[in-house]
């Protein structure tokens, strides 16, 4: 049995007496790659802000790496939990790209040599090495997003959370993010992604959590969740195109939980041969 990284018990949270989270229970194990989905205002961002202590539970508890978040500062938790915000413009401030990546490393008090190495590694990983002396504000939107990711990956957190990493990104950028996910998976990291992008989730995630009105309404393998019309409807998500196609073909015998293009073709062939 692998180690439990995040344990949420009966979590309640409200902003100005407006309930946002209403009894969330969740366990996340080391090495899992998880997508959290749901409509706007379902409480996804509020939930992930509990994972590094930015928000403290009003009721219930959140334990991250065995530490109760109420007993630890954001800085302490951030050392192990990297949170990449949706909009890079909410965090970029340094004179150069290099200094931007150094920021977190210096906050955590790494040795000078380690800082240099880590900056180098993160910049190369995100394909930003050639911009190292440029101002972050002269970069394109996609590059700024990658810089924000690099600045978090640089200090090598165990759990990495991305808030809407694919929003406003073109196909190529999405592929890059997908590659990054694979890399993090092979390094044994735990990754959580908050997203609306059903197509992106469809091919890459083992576990999908669906939220609606402050509650978890679905938690399971992506095949279970993304082919469950009831959950998708409740969370106001459209099924991936291949699933939709399978649903339309279900009356001739194509199974409703078909997910991949190749799979769909095979099932259709089977039906035709019959």
């Amino acid at each position, binding site marked *: 049995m692998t180690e439990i990284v995040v344990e949420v018990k009966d979590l309640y949270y409200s902003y100005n007496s407006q309930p946002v989270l209403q009894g969330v229970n969740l366990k996340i194990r080391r090495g899992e790659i998880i997508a959290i989905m749901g409509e706007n205002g379902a409480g996804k961002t509020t939930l992930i*802000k509990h994972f590094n202590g*930015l928000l403290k539970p009003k009721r219930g508890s959140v334990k991250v790496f065995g530490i109760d978040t109420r007993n630890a500062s954001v800085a302490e938790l951030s050392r192990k939990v*990297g949170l990449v915000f949706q909009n890079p413009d*909410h965090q970029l401030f340094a004179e150069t790209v290099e200094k931007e990546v150094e920021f977190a490393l210096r906050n955590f008090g790494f040795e000078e040599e380690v800082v240099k190495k880590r900056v180098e590694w993160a910049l190369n990983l995100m394909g930003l090495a050639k911009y190292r002396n440029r101002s972050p504000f002269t970069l394109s939107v996609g590059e700024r997003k990658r810089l924000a990711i690099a600045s978090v990956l640089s*200090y090598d957190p165990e759990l990495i959370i991305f808030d809407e990493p694919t929003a406003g990104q073109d196909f190529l950028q999405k592929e890059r993010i997908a590659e990054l996910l694979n890399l993090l998976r092979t390094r044994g990291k735990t990754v959580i992604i908050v997203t609306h992008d059903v197509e992106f989730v469809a091919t890459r995630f083992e576990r999908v959590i669906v939220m609606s009105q402050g509650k978890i309404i679905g938690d399971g393998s992506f095949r279970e969740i993304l082919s469950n019309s009831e959950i998708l409807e409740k969370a106001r998500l459209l099924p991936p195109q291949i699933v939709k196609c399978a649903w339309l073909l279900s009356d001739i015998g194509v199974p409703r939980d078909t997910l991949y293009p190749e799979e769909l073709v095979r099932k259709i062939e089977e039906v035709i041969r019959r």
Partner: protein
Amino acid sequence: MNYIFEGFKFKKKNTLIHDLDPRAKFIYLIMSFISALLFTEPIPLVIIFLTSLPLVIIAKTLKEWSRSMKSLSLFVTFIFILNLLSMTENRLNYAFSMVFRFLALTSAFSVFFLTTTPDDFMSALEEMGLPKEYTLMFTMSMRFVPTLARDLQIIVDAQKSRGLELEKGSLIKKVRNYVPILIPLIIYEIRRSIMIAEALEARAFGALRKTTSYTELKMGIRDYIFIFIVVFFFGMLIFLKIFGYLPEWMMIKLPEII
């Protein structure tokens, strides 16, 4: 921090003060503004500060008002200490006066904005002949205060997530800790304002010199009575001050401290 904003944010209520013409309330604002800046004696400044109290009570906004006054305590302490240290004579008297000048000003503003919608205020300014560009600038800045507060919160959260500890270090370090907060905020808001300007132009803002208005302001008998009382009261104070007729008790000074 949010309490400060709350004390200046319009809340719809059905009271006499809310129903007054914005121009009448604007005259009150200007008059108390002028008198607060004119006086340096503590007692008249306390009186000017207290004039906002009946208005606050009639407008049923005592809760919001007192909250915002309480949240100003940091500024008040700052003003008090700064004046106490920088003056050479009459220090206590002066510091006390400056605190009440500050409170009188903010209190009048608080009453005005708690009871007047930004839209009403804008049309009042336009009626007084201010160009639309300037009135819009003002209402927009009011409108974007909560947005700014939200952006600030996100930026603080983002930098905290990168290990920034605002409260850590010496005084100089603490001030420098705010650099990673302020730079993204300023740049983000400049970008946003450029976008808003483009959106406004795309909707033909400024195409006509004179535009029509959806609501029309009308002064009633209540407004004239209110203006009369305000002008009489503050006019009297200003008159007494300018021509040197202030009664003795108004000029009492606080004792010198050693």
